[in-house]
Structure formats: C-alpha cells, structure tokens
C-alpha cells in the first residue's frame, strides 16, 4: 500500500502533500523544524493520543478514533486542547478604533465580554486570519489561529499605533469543551458557567486559578472555550475529563465537526486570495462598517457587498461514499472548471461525503448540480446549504 494523496485539512502537513503523520513510513524526514510541546503533551500521550505535527506543535490527532470521538462530541461532551492557538491581549489608548483599521468588525460598539468573530485583512481585502476578539473594558482579548499567530502579531505590530501593545499570552493554555452536555459538565466544576449565553464570556475562579471562559466553539454544538494558566491546565483537564460524559477529542474530529457545521478553516477555506464576501462571511461586517468603510481593502469589499463577488464559498453534498478532498476541481455540467474544493471529507454524522469549496457565483445556488474531479475520476455533487448539521448553540434572547 502506498499513500498517494495526503489531503484533508486537519493537519497542515497533509494539505501540502507531505507525508501524513499517520504514515506507515512514520513520516520520516518531515520533522525538519523542531516541534514545540503543548502544556498537555504528556496528558495526551497518557491517554493514548496519536500525536502529529500541526502549527509547529506536536498535537493529538486522535485517541480512540475520529468517528467515535466525533459522534461522542455530538451526543455528550468532548474536551479539546487548542493551546496552539494564539491568545493575545491588546491594550493602549483607543484600542477599539485602532483594531477597526485592521478588521471590519464594529469594535467601538462591541459590548463588554461579548466575543466577536472578525477577520484580519490585507490591503486588497484578502483574509490574513480569522479570529475572535472580546472587549475586556477598554482592552481586547483576541484568539487567533495557531499556524498564523506569529504572522498576525507581526502585521498588527506593524499597523497598530506605537502606543498600542500586544501581549502574546504564551503562559496560557486553551481548552474547549463542546457538546450538548458541555454545560452540565462544566457547571459541576466551575459553577456559574451555565449562566453564560452563546457568545458571552466572563472571568471565573477554579482552584485558586483565574480562568477566562467564553461560551463559543468550533463544532456547531453548545460549548465553552477556557483560557487557563498553562501550569494549571493538566489539573483542569483531569477534572473535566474525570466526568463520565467527557472524552478527550483530537484534531481529526475537530476538523470533521467544523466541516459539518459549515465553519471555514483558515489556510484551507480562507486565505489572502479570499475576501469576506467571497467566503460568505458578510455577517462579520455590520451596518456601520458597511457605510463607513475604513478597513483594509474596503473599496473592494464594499463593492463586493453591493454587487456580489465573482466567487463564493459553498457547501457540497457528494454522491456515493468516496470522500472528495481539498484540491479537487469543481466543474459545471459541461465540464468547465468553475472552482476548487477547499475542504472535504466523510461526514460521520451524515454517513456521507461532504465538502466545501469556491464556485463562480452563478453556480452558488442551493441545489445546483455540479461535477467534481479528483485523480481523474468524476463525482456528482450538488450545492447544499450550510451548516450540513444544524447548529445547536445556547442562545439567550437576541444575539448577534
């Protein structure tokens, strides 16, 4: 058996065509850059995790198996270690207005302790990263992707005024507890968290440690993201994982869960070649920012909001059982190339292949029949509304 295709966006090394870390060859020769260890490294290994290189770290791709972990998270609660992500604390005079010059969110009107999804943009309106930013008084707590964090910090340092300071909170770990039972579980450990609504955050205390917890996540389920001092992370992970409704979940299931939830993954579904409008993330630009602009690439993005973008990110349901993965071509019914798959795989919840990709906007309507081409083989597919699996967020009243 020889591995021919290494795609699938769980692991950035696969998407680049280098040997999959689960490669029978042992991925020999792939570790050119020394990898960092997460605060929970030995915790993962003790629980049987298979560790793979990701974003410069050794990270758990799976424990008992991706499908079992995926389904467990949809039914109970899954504990994810996302400590590779960058946690930034940005402070200084008028940080909100300063951040608005880099991103299209309405930070001036952002309510205290309400995370906002936003996009770090380049001067052409291309996406440098997607992130969550939460006002804490006059300062902002920002969580960015692991693989892009150093570049993000460089961009921010270059573009923000000199009196705005970015603290990279390297001493903080980040855990996520996701699933319909997440609130029941976490409430037994950190009383009060169940009172948070979706996209709401607050400080908590646990065992003498400060935690910052937001009700948010990347699975489409209810859940929490917990910033904890790295030194306390193993004890907190132990306390959470001791609950019978909790299992540790690897990056593999994180990827299949977010794909079912229709959530884009930076470096695959989003990059500097895509704009917020192409990526169907118009919700991230509110009315005031649409009328005022004032963010990088605003002329292009405002025009795209008005007239549509030439390409659009869509979901695709693929006929048959074979997964169609990142890099496959999208063709119209006459065989003309109209786009590419940016994420694709087998949906454990739906038991069928699903994918996400960009198509010429005329083909973006739900139900549009398309063909996909992968390794010389054609697949029938149709444009499907996303999410593929309905979100089950814990919304309290109206929420942005």
């Amino acid at each position: 058996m020889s591995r021919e295709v290494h795609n699938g966006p769980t692991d950035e090394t696969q998407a680049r065509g280098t040997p999959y870390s689960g490669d029978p060859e042992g991925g020999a020769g792939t570790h050119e850059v020394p990898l960092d260890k997460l605060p929970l490294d030995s915790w993962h290994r003790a629980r049987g995790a298979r560790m793979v290189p990701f974003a410069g770290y050794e990270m758990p791709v799976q424990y008992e198996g991706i499908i079992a972990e995926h389904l467990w998270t949809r039914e109970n609660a899954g504990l994810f270690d996302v400590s590779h992500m960058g946690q930034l604390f940005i402070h200084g005079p008028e940080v909100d207005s300063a951040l608005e010059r880099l991103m299209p969110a309405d930070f001036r009107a952002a309510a205290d302790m309400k995370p906002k999804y936003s996009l770090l943009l380049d001067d052409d309106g291309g996406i440098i990263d997607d992130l969550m930013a939460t006002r804490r008084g006059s300062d902002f707590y920002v969580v960015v992707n692991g693989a892009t964090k150093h570049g993000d910090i460089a961009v921010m340092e270059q573009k923000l005024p000199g009196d705005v300071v970015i603290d990279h909170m390297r001493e903080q770990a980040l855990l996520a507890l996701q699933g319909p039972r997440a609130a029941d579980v976490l409430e037994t450990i950190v009383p009060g968290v169940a009172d948070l609504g979706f996209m709401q955050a607050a400080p908590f205390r646990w065992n003498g440690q400060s935690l910052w917890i937001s009700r948010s996540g990347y699975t489409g389920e209810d859940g929490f993201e917990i910033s904890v001092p790295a030194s306390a992370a193993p004890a907190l992970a132990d306390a959470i994982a001791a609950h019978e409704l909790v299992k540790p979940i690897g990056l593999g299931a994180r990827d299949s869960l977010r794909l079912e939830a229709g959530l884009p993954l930076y470096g695959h579904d989003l990059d500097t070649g895509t704009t917020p409008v192409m990526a169907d993330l118009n919700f991230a630009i509110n009315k005031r920012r649409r009328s005022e602009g004032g963010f990088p690439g605003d002329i292009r993005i405002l025009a795209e909001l008005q007239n549509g973008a030439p390409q659009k990110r869509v979901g695709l349901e693929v006929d048959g059982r074979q997964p169609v993965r990142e890099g496959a071509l999208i063709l119209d019914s006459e065989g003309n190339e109209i786009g590419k798959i940016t994420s694709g795989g087998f949906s454990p919840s739906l038991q069928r292949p699903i994918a996400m990709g960009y198509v010429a906007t005329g083909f973006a309507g739900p139900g549009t029949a398309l063909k996909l081409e992968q390794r010389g083989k054609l697949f029938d597919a149709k444009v499907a509304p996303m999410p593929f699996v309905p979100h089950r967020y814990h919304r309290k009243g109206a929420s942005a």
Partner: protein
Amino acid sequence: MSLYFTKEHEWIRVEGDTATIGISDHAQEQLGDIVFAEVPETGRKLSKGQEAAVVESVKAASDVYAPVSGEVVEGNSKVADDPSLVNSDAEGEGWFFKLKLDNPGELDGLMDESAYREWVKSL
C-alpha cells in the same frame, strides 16, 4: 500456503498459483477509520506496482498497489460494501483482491511474517 509482506504494508497469502492481497493490521491502524474501499474488477490484468485498489480513511486516501503481477480472479465485494471490515479484520476478512500469479518468482525477496512484524516495530 505462504504469507508474505511488503514494505508498503501489504500482505500476500499464496495458495497454489493464487495470491490473496490485503493491507496489514499496522496499516489499517495507521489509517484510522476506513470509510471507502474500491477493489479491482475480475479479469483485470495487473502488473507489479500498478494501482489496484483504493482505501480511504476519514483523514487519508491511499492506493493499494499490486505487489506481484497477475490477473484478478476476485475483488472482495464485502469490503467495498462495508469498508470498516478492513479496520476490524485487515489480515483476514478485510482482504482486497485475489490474483492468479503470473510469475511466482516475484515473491522472492518479500518479507515473511516475523521479519515484517520486527520491521514494523522499528518504524
């Protein structure tokens, strides 16, 4: 009957001039949850090293190459229908295809079972 293994993690069970071919237990474990398998049609002539079958897990797609030359006498429709059979019994019911050997001499130089298991430990 003789059992051989390749460095590509395939096994070949030879009975007379017929070889049954699959992927090793180590290979299925490395692939993880297998969600798709495609096996060759009966009558297809395969030369050594040619793509013969496809196996895909949640995370990876792989080709199974013919480790020896021959004509396909049977593809395992059970694994095509239920690819998880490769996870549960890779070296038994999860076989991919059977070949009528063109040249039994091609088996020379392949690993026997104990050599393969030792080699896998070293990976």
